[in-house]
Each structure stands twice: as C-alpha cells, then as structure tokens.
C-alpha cells in the first residue's frame, strides 16, 4: 500500500533549500518557511484517503478491579470498525522505557485515573467518541494508594503492583531508590562542626510538559504485514523497540517516520498513541489516525515527578558549608517510566553545584495510584534545585551574609569533585555565572507616576493601581547533567552522503533525530557545511531506516547526533581526499575541503569537488558513543555516572501584590556556559524557553490531583505562562569549551529550567518575607489565607 500523507513530502522539499552558514552562525531554520505558511505537516495533520479515527476509553478511577468489559453495543454503532481490549493484543501485553510494567491496555485492573482500557476505530472522531461511551465496564472501585505514608505501608494499604507482578525492579511500592554518602557522611561529630544548622521541608507540585501539538499520528498497515507509523516522538527507535513485541512483529516490520512535532519537553519519551493506532490498523487493515484532545493529552503522557524533600545544611559563621543531608521522595505514579533514571539524577545532582565536604542523600521514587511521572525538562534536577537553593538563601540570612556571596564561596569549579566522587574535568564557572547575573543592570524601579496598570501583577484584570505592590530580587544557580548516565551506552548514528546534483556538490544528512523544535535540523546542516565545505545541504526525513539517534532529551542531541554528523562528515571528507590522492598522487598533509573545492592549506586549490566526485556518491554512516559512565553504587552513590555537566545562573526581579497574592515577574536574567554556541540564535531561544517553563513551575503550573483524580486536565485550568506573564529574559552566554565534547559544546536546553525556578521564589520571599516552602507559589501562600 502506498502511503500518501498530506504534506510530508513538502516538509522534505523545503528543508532541502539550503542556507549558507556553518557552525557559530545563526542561519534560519530550514523548516521555518513551511511553518509560517501553515504548510508544515505536524503529526496531527497526517491524512490518508480512507483513514479511520482511533480513540481510547479511559478509566474514571485511579484504582479499581475490572470485573467485566462489554464492547457489544459499541461494535453495533454504524461506522465503527473495531473495538479492542487487551485480549486482542497479538504479542506481549506490556511495555515500558526502562521496566516493562505498563499494559498496553488495562488487564483486570486500573492503576491510575485515565488509564486506557479499550480502543475504538471509527469513520469519524464523533463516531469514535460515541462508541467509546457505549463500552460498558464494571468496576470494583478500591481505595487509591496516593500518599507517601500509604505507599510505604503496603501491608495496610495494598500494592500498586502485587509483589508477584514485579520482574526485576523495586520492592513494596518503591520503584527505585538511590543512596549517596560523601566525605564523612552526616554524623553527630560532623554536625558539631557547623555553627548554624538549617533544616526544612520542601514540596514541588506535579508539572506538565504541556507541549502544544497533541499526541497524534497515523498508522498504516503495509502489504508485508508490517506497520508504517508517522508519529511525533522523541526517540523513533525506542518507540519501535517497545511497540514491536506488543504488535507481535519483528522490529524490521515496524517502520517509523517522524511527523512534525509540536514540542516535547520529555512528554513524548514514553509511548502514547503508537501501539493503539497500530493495533487498530492491524485489525482493520486500514490507516488509523489518533489525535488526542487536550484532556486526553494530560492523561496520556507522564508528568514531572511531584516531590517531598527534607534538607538539612550546616554552615560555619564565615559561610563555609560543612555538611548536607537530604531525603527526596518522588511520586512516580502507577508505572515506572523513567523513574529510576530520575532518581539517579535527583540523588547525584541533589546537593547542587557546591563543594560540601560531608554529604548524605537518599532519593526514592514511589509507585502510587497517581498519574505516572517520568521525563520532563530538567529530569530530577529541578525538584532538588528548588530545595537546595532555598536552603542557600536561609543559610545566608542566618549568618548575615549576602546570598550570592555565600553561593560563590562554596561554588564548585573545574577540578573539584561531585558528591559522587566524580572529578569535574571541564569548565564549571559557577561563581562567574552568578557574578554575571549580579552585574547585569537592573530594570528601572516601579514608577507609580507614569503607570500602565497592564504591567502590574494581575495585569489586564486591572486589580491594582500600584498600592500593595512590593518588589523583590532573588538569585539562583543550578547544575544539570547532559546525556544519558549511569552506564547507559548512549550513542547516535548519522549517515552523510556527498554527491553532485545540478553541477554542485550537495551533502545529505540522514539521522533518526527527532526535531521537536529545538533546531537540530539547522545545526546538522551547519555541521555538514563546515566539515565538507559545501553550501547545499539537505536533511533527510528522520526515520528508522538509519540507526538510532537516541532520544531528543537530556540536552544531548547536539552533543550526540551533532557529534555523529561531524564524524560521518569527516569520514566522507577523508574518503574524498583519499580518492584524490589515488588519482592525482597528492602528497600534502594539509588537504581539506572548502568552498566546494579540495584545497591544500599551504598550496591552495587542488581540484573542484565536483570533478573529483564525478558520478560517484560517497555515502558513509558513523556512530558517536560518548565516553563510558558507570552506574552509581546503590548504597554510596559513588561513581563516574555523568558524562557532562552544565550550569546556569539566574536573577529574578518580581513585583508582588501582597494584598491579592499576585506575582508579576518583571525581569528574569540568565547566564549560562554553553561551551560553544553552534547556533547562537537557537541557543538563546532554548535558554529563554527553559526559563519560562521554570517561571511556570514557580508560580502557576500544577496538575491538581486529589485522591488520585486529576482535577484540571485542560488549558482552562492548567495554566502555562502567557506572553503577559513572561518578562524580558536577557541572556549572557559564556563559551568555555569542554575538551571532551564535539566542538567543545555543552548541552543547553535543561539547565535554565533547573535554575530559574528557585530565584523567582527567592524574589517573592524577599518581597513578602514569607517562607514559601512549596511550589508553585499560589496567591494564598502569599496572603496567608490558606
């Protein structure tokens, strides 16, 4: 069966228009023109002439036994082609990113509000909706296990997964745990060395990625019995790896092509509609499209782990940190998703970018009947940063020291050790970044004489004319790892082809990298231009015909796939030069490619590339593996666990209406070391976007879950920052090359989301004097009317 997608081919054509800049420049996005025309084909725009619409029936209960499922009435509805339950799954019934603990369709029980039980294919979305409503499910509703106390007492409250259901993971309702001890740990003797000890509890609510493009895609049954899936995802190959066993197919019969992705932020790392659409396509023999509505999107992907944390720090009177002791409890929800890796990050990064001689840490992720949590920008480092940065401010206040000075005094730098014992072997300009945000000019003070009320907290609602407004300033810094950690063989594959097209040398770059908006397609073309000295570069659509690129997450794609493109291009360059040596007998050692020619740096141009290439294409594939890491020791947390670290510092200026509890962030400044900015325009866009998601977590974004039920699964009730909520975000970019990374680059996307949340809260604290131990900060926390 041939596949016709409405505009997929246009995506390709326009991306093939080349622009000229190499690395370090800011050429415009190759997909930008299609996107502003409204012609870029996102996954929800996929279309096939005789396609059906798929939809899932989702559980209204967070925990229940399923006594029966009756699909007969749904099947009778005209226009319905299939209704499937777990009994119709041809292969394995379970999947998962790290642990295969999630049923593709619920089997005998549901473990969270919104879990999929049955799926429908029909000729119109409304028919599918009506069919879903006609499926009768009989439940025995059980008390959900939702609090830490309930989770940790399974003998009283029950198991989210019965002990016999465990494979290799967890115990009780603990999905994963990681301890860490550094220096002398935390003993009475060590506590006695501190002049001041501060201990506090902190809490982080459940944040959502809230990407705008809903989960969606089109599954097309192929003549060979396989499935062709056009989908928005972060990692094509790991989707396939999870899908194929469930569909009962070998991996080579499950072919994935990336459709346009409307944002991701971690929320597309787990499967959503991939298996469901494919099962329906297999059963009906017709293409099946699924597009989640916004509420289904909130139910259908994992969120950022909510956290409860206890932190204790000791400091000397002159500002030296003596010890830090922390416990982080992350609620992982019903299924494991990426929880084990999130726990590893929380434990290893959870004391921040500070030299602390004695450290103890315990981080755990719970199984509960709350929504599943997994990857989101900042991945386990975000929650801890709110706690340790709040502690820094408290410590500074307790000893009467400037909070930035206290941070700088204890800041780690290159050559220092992490609490894991890992020596930081590339620049770590923590103190400098703080100094940079501190030195940037402040916005002008509030001018009550010439006031535009639209700039005040509450803005357009005209809630104030300046009375009750107090300004505050806060600072923060954070640390994030780049790439996959703890012994994971993190790699990416790139294929580069050089050939003559229309009388010009043209490079083609083929990877499976998911372009989710971050601009990887722009950077890949820049790398190929730089390495091959050509102007024209085409980017092949990302699909599973080439090796894995790994995930577009962990700030790793430019590092990993960018590196793979560099190595593949270098191999092509070497092959072309070797061809020239054989043909012309060149002996120079300084031959390279530039301006469409083979050139000797000392002797000048040797031959145009088109003459040397002729009709022959050079087509080579290379993998980039980053240097190996090791798993952290389970009890001590020691080990070379992370491949690279990245740092960002922030300053927030806020206006707070202390009567109404409303906050307006006036300015949010960022300073970040990016190693080498391959595309400065994109880098700054990433930092500003990352800061804005942090702003959301600080003051508005939370999925409200009560007794396991989600109360705000819509953009009406789950608030993300608008352009009115978001201030100017000046960015000071530092470029200190990492000797271990391609081009010296450092992953960019996540660090600002780690660091920017605490500084906004610090600024609100400074304005209000309130302790603010929980985020998001709500009006009632500020007014004290909780």
């Amino acid at each position, binding site marked *: 069966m041939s596949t016709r997608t409405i505009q997929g081919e246009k995506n390709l054509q326009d991306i093939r228009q080349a622009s000229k800049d190499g690395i370090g420049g800011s050429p415009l996005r190759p997909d930008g023109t299609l996107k502003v025309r409204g012609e870029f084909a996102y996954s929800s725009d996929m279309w096939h002439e005789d396609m059906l619409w798929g939809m899932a029936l989702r559980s209204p209960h967070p925990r229940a036994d399923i006594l029966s499922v009756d699909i007969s009435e749904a099947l009778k509805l005209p226009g319905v082609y299939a209704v499937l339950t777990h009994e119709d799954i041809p292969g394995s019934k379970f999947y998962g990113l790290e642990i295969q603990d999630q049923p593709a369709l619920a089997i005998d029980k549901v473990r969270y509000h919104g879990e999929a039980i049955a799926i429908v294919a029909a000729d119109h979305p409304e028919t599918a909706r009506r069919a879903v409503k006609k499926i009768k499910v009989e439940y025995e509703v059980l008390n959900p296990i939702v609090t830490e106390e309930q989770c940790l007492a399974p003998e009283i409250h029950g198991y989210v997964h019965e002990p016999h259901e465990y494979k290799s993971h967890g115990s009780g309702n603990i999905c994963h745990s990681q301890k860490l001890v550094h220096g002398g740990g935390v003993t009475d003797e060590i506590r006695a060395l501190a002049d001041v000890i501060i201990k506090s509890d902190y809490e982080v609510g459940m944040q959502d990625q809230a990407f705008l493009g809903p989960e969606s895609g089109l599954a097309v049954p192929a003549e060979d019995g396989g499935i062709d899936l056009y989908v928005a995802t972060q990692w094509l190959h790991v989707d396939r790896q999870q899908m194929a066993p469930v569909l009962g197919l070998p991996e080579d019969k499950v072919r994935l092509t990336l459709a346009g992705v409307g*944002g991701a932020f971690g929320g597309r790392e787990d499967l959503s509609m991939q298996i469901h659409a494919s099962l329906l396509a297999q059963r009906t023999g017709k293409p099946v499209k699924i597009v989640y509505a916004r509420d289904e999107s909130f139910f259908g992907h994992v969120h950022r782990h909510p956290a409860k944390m206890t932190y204790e720090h000791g400091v000397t009177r002159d500002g030296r940190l003596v010890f830090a002791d922390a416990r982080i409890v992350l609620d992982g929800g019903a299924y494991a998703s990426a929880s084990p890796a999130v726990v590893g990050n929380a434990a290893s990064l959870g004391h921040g970018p500070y030299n602390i001689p004695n450290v103890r840490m315990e981080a755990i992720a719970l199984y509960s009947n709350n929504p599943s949590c997994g990857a989101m920008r900042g991945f386990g480092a975000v929650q801890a940063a709110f706690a340790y940065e709040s502690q820094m401010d408290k410590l500074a206040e307790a000893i009467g020291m400037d909070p930035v000075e206290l941070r700088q005094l204890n800041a780690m730098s290159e050559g220092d050790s992490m609490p894991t014992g890992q020596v930081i072997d590339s620049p770590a300009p923590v103190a400098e970044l703080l100094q940079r945000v501190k030195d940037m000019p402040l916005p002008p003070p509030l001018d009550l004489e010439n006031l535009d009320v*639209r700039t005040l907290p509450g803005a357009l609602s005209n809630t104030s004319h300046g009375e009750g407004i107090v300004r505050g300033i806060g600072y923060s810094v954070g640390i994030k790892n780049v790439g996959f950690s703890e012994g994971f063989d993190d790699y990416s594959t790139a294929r580069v082809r050089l050939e003559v097209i229309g009388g010009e040398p043209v490079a083609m770059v083929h990877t499976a990298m998911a372009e989710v908006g971050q601009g990887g397609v722009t950077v890949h073309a820049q790398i190929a231009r730089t390495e091959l000295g050509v102007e024209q570069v085409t980017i092949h659509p990302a699909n599973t015909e080439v090796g894995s690129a790994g995930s577009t997450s962990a700030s790793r794609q430019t590092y990993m796939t960018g590196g793979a493109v560099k190595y593949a291009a270098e191999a092509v360059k070497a092959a072309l030069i070797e061809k020239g040596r054989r043909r012309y007998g060149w002996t120079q050692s300084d031959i390279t490619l530039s301006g469409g020619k083979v050139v000797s740096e000392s002797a000048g141009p040797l031959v145009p590339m088109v003459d040397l290439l002729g009709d022959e294409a050079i087509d080579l594939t290379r993998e980039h593996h980053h240097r190996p890491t090791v798993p952290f020791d389970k009890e001590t947390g020691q080990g070379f666990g992370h491949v690279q670290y990245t740092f960002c510092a922030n300053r927030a200026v806020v206006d707070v209406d202390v009567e109404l509890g409303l906050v307006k962030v006036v300015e949010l400044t960022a300073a970040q070391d990016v190693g080498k900015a391959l595309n400065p325009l994109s880098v700054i866009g990433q930092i500003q976007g990352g800061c804005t998601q942090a702003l959301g977590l600080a003051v508005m974004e939370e999925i409200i879950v009560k007794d396991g039920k989600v109360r705000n699964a819509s953009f009406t009730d789950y608030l993300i920052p608008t352009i009115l909520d978001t201030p*100017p975000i000046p960015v000071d970019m530092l470029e200190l090359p990492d000797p271990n990374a391609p081009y010296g680059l450092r992953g960019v996307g996540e660090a600002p989301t780690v660091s920017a949340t605490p500084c906004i809260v610090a600024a609100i604290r400074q304005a209000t004097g309130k302790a603010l131990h929980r985020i998001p900060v709500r009006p009632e926390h500020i007014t004290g009317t909780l």
Partner: protein
Amino acid sequence: MRVTFTANGKPVEADDVWEGESLLYVLRERVGLPGSKNACEQGECGSCTVYLDGTPVCSCLVAAGQVQGREVRTVEGLSDENGELGLVQQAFIDAGAVQCGFCTPGLLVQTDALLDADAQPSDTDIREALSGNLCRCTGYEKIMDAVRLASARKCAKAASE
C-alpha cells in the same frame, strides 16, 4: 449539512458536515487547510486563530454552520497570490520566533490583526494583544522581537509608499 463559505478568497464547500463540527475541523479535515492548529479546542491557546469576516477568532469555538456564506482567512492566506511570504510571516522567521512552530499560525494571524489596527504598538500593547496565544517553546522573547521587526518594516514600507 452542506456548508459553503470563502476561504482565503476562494469559494469552498463541505458536504456531510455533522452539526457539532467546528470551523477548525472543517478547515483541517474537509477543506484541506490544516494550517490552523488544534491544541486545546477550548479557545484557550489561540493556535487555531483565523480571521472570520476580518475579525480574529478561535476557529475551534466557531460551529461550522456559523460560517455559511462568510469569509474566512487562515494562515495559509497570509502570503500573497504569488506565494510571497507576508511581512509578519517573514519577520517571525528572521527573528527566530519559530521553534516547534505549532503556535505560529495562530500568532501570525493575531499579530497581523494587531498591526492592521496599530502599526506601531508598544511592548505592553503587543503583550496584551497576544495574551490569548500560548507558546511553550520560545519564552516569547523572540516573538516580541518578531512583532517589533514586523512593525518597523510595516512603518518603513508605509513611509516609502
């Protein structure tokens, strides 16, 4: 039912439209104009913004039947007849205001409408006018840059004419 209206200057008709269908669904799934995006279908995110008789509306909130005989202009209609990008479209590309781009079509229509009403809006005017359009990627800074750039180009163009 059958619905006929004008889309980007051309007459279109859609047959067998279910009365519950939105203008957004008809544009995307029946008329072949998928540029308007379906992000929330509650009028909260602005991704589906189109002109209806010259006024920007969330097409997800407009019932298909309501557009009978009326004029719709979508993001696809912001380029000129020769396919040349409109001034606002070009400014969004040049300023780096497009990342994932899912919010872009709605923002373009809303910005176009803003600059039609006021070619030189203040920053606060821009923020007020675009406050119904959510963007999750950019942090809005580059979007502000894009609108300022489009405004400057529009004023320069007006001055030279």
